[in-house]
């Protein structure tokens, strides 16, 4: 058999509120750039996050990472965001906008602490119609 690569992907979800707003800019600027997403009191989404890990399959367990370890690592990263207001309650978003791009970058940074180089791809669904992907290409 030819040499192969194996990746496992699992979907998780969290629900959070946010507001897209650049504090240094005036209301007109923010309204123009972010439109509805600039709503003063925020709004929310059910985010769906598909996490892919890639690496050799352990010959004993038959897994890239034991699923229980994988689930626990993900829980540590996602639980703090669930049912929170990202901009008010998560430090990273004090100086980053809580756009899908920034959220997926934040999730990568946090998940990599537990999953290391096995973290291969993230796909973050903000709504059924928008998703953001971040993939290791080295």
């Amino acid at each position, binding site marked *: *058999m*030819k*040499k*192969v*690569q*194996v*990746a*496992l*992907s*699992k*979907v*998780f979800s969290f629900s959070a509120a946010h507001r897209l707003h650049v504090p240094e800019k005036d209301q007109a600027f923010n309204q123009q750039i972010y439109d509805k997403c600039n709503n003063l009191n925020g709004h929310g989404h059910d985010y769906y996050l598909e996490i*892919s890990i890639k690496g050799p*399959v352990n*010959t*004993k*367990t*038959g*897994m*890239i990472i*034991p*699923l*229980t370890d994988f689930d626990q690592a993900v829980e540590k990263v996602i639980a703090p965001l669930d049912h929170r207001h990202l901009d008010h309650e998560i430090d990273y978003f004090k100086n980053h906008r809580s756009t899908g791009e920034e959220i997926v970058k934040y999730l990568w940074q946090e998940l990599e602490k537990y999953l290391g180089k096995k973290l291969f791809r993230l796909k973050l669904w903000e709504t059924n119609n928008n998703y953001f992907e971040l993939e290791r290409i080295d």
Partner: protein
Amino acid sequence: MKKKITISKKFEFSASHRYWIDDWSAEKNNEVFGLCTSPYGHGHNYELHVTVSGPVDPQTGMIINLSTLKAIAGKIVEQFDHKFLNLDTPYFKDRVPTTENIALVLYELLEEQLKKEAGITLEKIRLYERGDLYVDVWPEDK
């Protein structure tokens, strides 16, 4: 510009399995495999996506005739359908039937049969255990 064209077909099979390593203690098995150690097994409706690539035949307009793909892959998938994977298939006597391992077995069987029967290159497979969990297998050089 170089381009690549692929065709994918979806197959379904329902099977049960159990995760257990004999030379581990029950505690260790439970710690690593959790609910999947349940003694009589449990089951899933698996969904397999088979993706092949190759030149499009100028006459038929096809990479592979879908009925050929269906016949070749269908015969392989049938071995897994409505089976207890640990005992009713020969593939998991000495490996745990995790999604990764099932996908690796399917990839190996498909790659060989597609090459032999249709001269076709297997590009990738994706095996869904459920809607929220799947494994991809593809050649190392891609």
